[in-house]
């Protein structure tokens, strides 16, 4: 096969400009990689991509491929214009699960690069939108070898198809002062409890876990996960009053009013106090701060602005929301609070969250329609039926507000009220 380069006049334009260019990178492989397979494959893929740019159309089609013993984890791609660009007529992507929290040593990344070079195109992505390392560009001859090799030193495939998907967790406890839980432990406990469901797609549709250590939700979990775990706390936030005072003066300096206490206070009023969604904070005349913790909704804003002065509490745990997803079929959904608070300290706590996840997945596997996400199912059957299905009691934290239409059948009211009172009584007794 001639190593003639396909012309790429449009792609070349994407080499201009200061931002790192993926085109430059691919060309570099094509032009300079010692391995001819790689040079050819990247030449082909550039040719096809140029063709796409010119015609404004894509030219890949799917298929079925997986490593021995698994049913999923690879996105197979066969070219529809393989006759024009035969070098890359197969161009599969392997989805490999990253370490929880996305930590790498440079050594390990070199090792992965070395393996990939042996079998694939030399292109990879850190990470895909679901968090996988995507090794882009393998063919039928090579993918199994690559998998076997990296599998030997600790790497496994992620999800693709109707299965439990690769999870995500924020940097969290490893580096972030806002963290309220061990994001990585939660991530790994959950995912590794479902390896079978990750590797052998047999669910109604995909199911995603994402863990954010606090309500800033750096993992976009509420909107993009079927099962979102968000760290939070129940007791009072901590206020370092000396740092509140410092923050005021520091802010004054930052806005060019060095030493002007009033200016610093004004900034705090306008940017912290008055931005609290529930009006739960007060800046006192003596530059101390008072927090009405019973009204604080843990939105994070004041802590974000004043990380030195304010810290989350000690009674940490997580809230769990279910049913988030993006657009297909009924439009984007946010998750809904199902567990307002759950401790996440002991082994039993971890068992409990795994059980909960299993219950949810089982219920959905039985009741979800084909290609119906958990959130769509909840939408279809109603939150109450879902709660009953998974054995969770209704709680006012699950709602934004009670119903505003009288169209509902309420003949079980008395029993439901009784249950509530019993539960409250038990909670009281448990607390006492």
């Amino acid at each position, binding site marked *: 096969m001639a190593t003639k380069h396909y012309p790429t006049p449009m792609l070349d334009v994407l080499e201009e400009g200061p931002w790192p260019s993926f085109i430059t990178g691919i060309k570099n492989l094509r032009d300079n990689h010692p391995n001819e397979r790689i040079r050819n494959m990247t030449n082909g893929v550039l040719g096809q991509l140029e063709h796409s740019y010119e015609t404004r159309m894509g030219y890949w089609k799917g298929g079925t491929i997986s490593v021995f013993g698994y049913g999923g984890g690879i996105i197979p791609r066969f070219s529809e214009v393989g006759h024009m660009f035969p070098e890359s007529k197969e161009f599969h992507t392997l989805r490999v699960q990253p370490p929880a929290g996305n930590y790498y040593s440079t050594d390990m990344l070199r090792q992965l690069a070395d393996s990939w070079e042996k079998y694939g195109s030399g292109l990879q992505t850190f990470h895909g939108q679901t968090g996988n390392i995507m090794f882009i560009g393998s063919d039928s001859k090579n993918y199994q070898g690559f998998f076997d090799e990296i599998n030997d030193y600790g790497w496994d495939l992620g999800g693709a198809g109707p299965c439990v998907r690769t999870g995500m967790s924020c940097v969290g406890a490893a580096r972030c002062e806002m963290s309220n839980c061990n994001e990585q432990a939660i991530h790994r406990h959950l995912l590794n409890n479902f390896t079978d469901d990750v590797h052998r797609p047999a669910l109604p549709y995909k199911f995603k876990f994402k863990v954010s250590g606090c309500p800033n939700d750096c993992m976009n979990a509420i909107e993009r996960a079927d099962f979102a775990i968000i760290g939070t706390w129940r007791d009072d936030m901590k206020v370092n009053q000396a740092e509140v005072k410092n923050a005021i003066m520091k802010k004054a300096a930052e806005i060019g009013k060095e030493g002007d206490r009033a200016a610093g206070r004004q900034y705090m009023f306008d940017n912290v106090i008055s931005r609290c969604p529930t009006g739960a904070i007060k800046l006192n005349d003596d530059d101390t701060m008072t927090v009405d913790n019973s009204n604080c909704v843990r939105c994070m804003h004041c802590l974000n602005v004043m990380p030195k002065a304010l810290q989350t509490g000690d009674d940490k745990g997580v809230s769990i929301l279910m049913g988030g997803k993006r657009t297909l079929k009924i439009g984007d959904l946010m998750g809904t609070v199902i567990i307002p608070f759950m401790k996440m300290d002991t082994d039993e706590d971890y068992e409990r969250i795994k059980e909960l996840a299993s219950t949810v997945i089982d219920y959905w596997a039985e009741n979800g329609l084909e290609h119906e996400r958990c959130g769509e199912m909840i939408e279809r059957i109603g939150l109450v039926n879902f709660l009953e299905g998974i054995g969770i009691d209704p709680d006012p934290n699950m709602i934004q507000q009670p119903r505003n239409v009288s169209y509902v059948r*309420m003949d079980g009211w008395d029993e439901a009220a009784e249950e509530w009172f019993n539960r409250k009584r038990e909670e009281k007794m448990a607390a006492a």
Partner: protein
Amino acid sequence: MAAEMREPIESGCPDGFQYMHPVMRRNYGQWLYHEDPRPGVLVHVARSGEKIWTVRAGTQRILDVFTLRKLMDIGDQYGEGFVRFTIRSNIEYMVADGEKVEPLVKALEDAGFPVGGTRNSVTTLSHTQGWLHCDIPGTDASGVVKAMMDELIDEFKGWNMPNRVHMTTSCCQINCGGQGDIAINVQHVKPPKINHALVGNICERPSVVARCPVAAIRPAMVDGKPSLEVDEKKCICCGACYPPCPPMQINDHQYTQLAIWIGGNHSNARGKPTFQRLVAAGIPNNPPRWPEATAIVKKILQCYKEGARDWERMNEWVERIGWPRFFEVTGLPFTKYHIDNWRGARNNLNSSTHIRF
């Protein structure tokens, strides 16, 4: 008989100016501000400097001619011959002479018409026809109102609430009464009982089928006659089929109950208008004084009075403290029925971590 008939004069809506107090007529559109000298009394000041005092009193809405004449006598003797009724069936006397206010107030109170209902009071519950007149009522709204206002009269006469409290009651799930800060409404909990013998003769079956919000009704032959059938699993017991088809009796002495809704706010002040939301149900429809419903209403009002800030309407108070806390402070049970499952329900779910602990 038709011979004696005459064509109606289609005069439509009469001109109010002819019955209006001359000071109001003169200063129409030229009012500058008002003050509230005491509960139940307003004084409006016009740019011209003229003033008009208003004295507001509660009535029973369903007036007999004796009572109406008594009210007019007071208007002639202590007022200036001009009155109006508010949207809540309170009567208002307008006088240009401020001296007349106190005697007028006294005359009304003496005659049994409480003066109040302005500003941050609990004004008269608005209500609907009930057993006295409607063909579908589940309760007697006038009776409910009388029973509750008896207990709330001090709140009507005082300014003890954080902001205006507008309550309402309706006697069936059609809800001719408005939304309210607190609404006491009918809630049926069993499907209609069908008198199959009558359906075929009385009801236009396709219309009835179309009326059901959840498509639970289908035409059926019962005992060889055309009738209707209800899928009882689907039926939400709303009673919408009952007006077009009276043989589908929805009312029941036991399963027609009351529910209480709060936070309906029609005004645009501060927040946008809001719908009322369910807080309590399963309340017995218990004439003549509906003590269970009244107790809940009073409890809610008490919590509102204690917890809300000045100018917070009921909904604003609850939104600030959060719904979980509302159930906590009122001691009302939270149940699965509070969780919306109607169209667009997802807007009523909590899709955030905003939670109070």
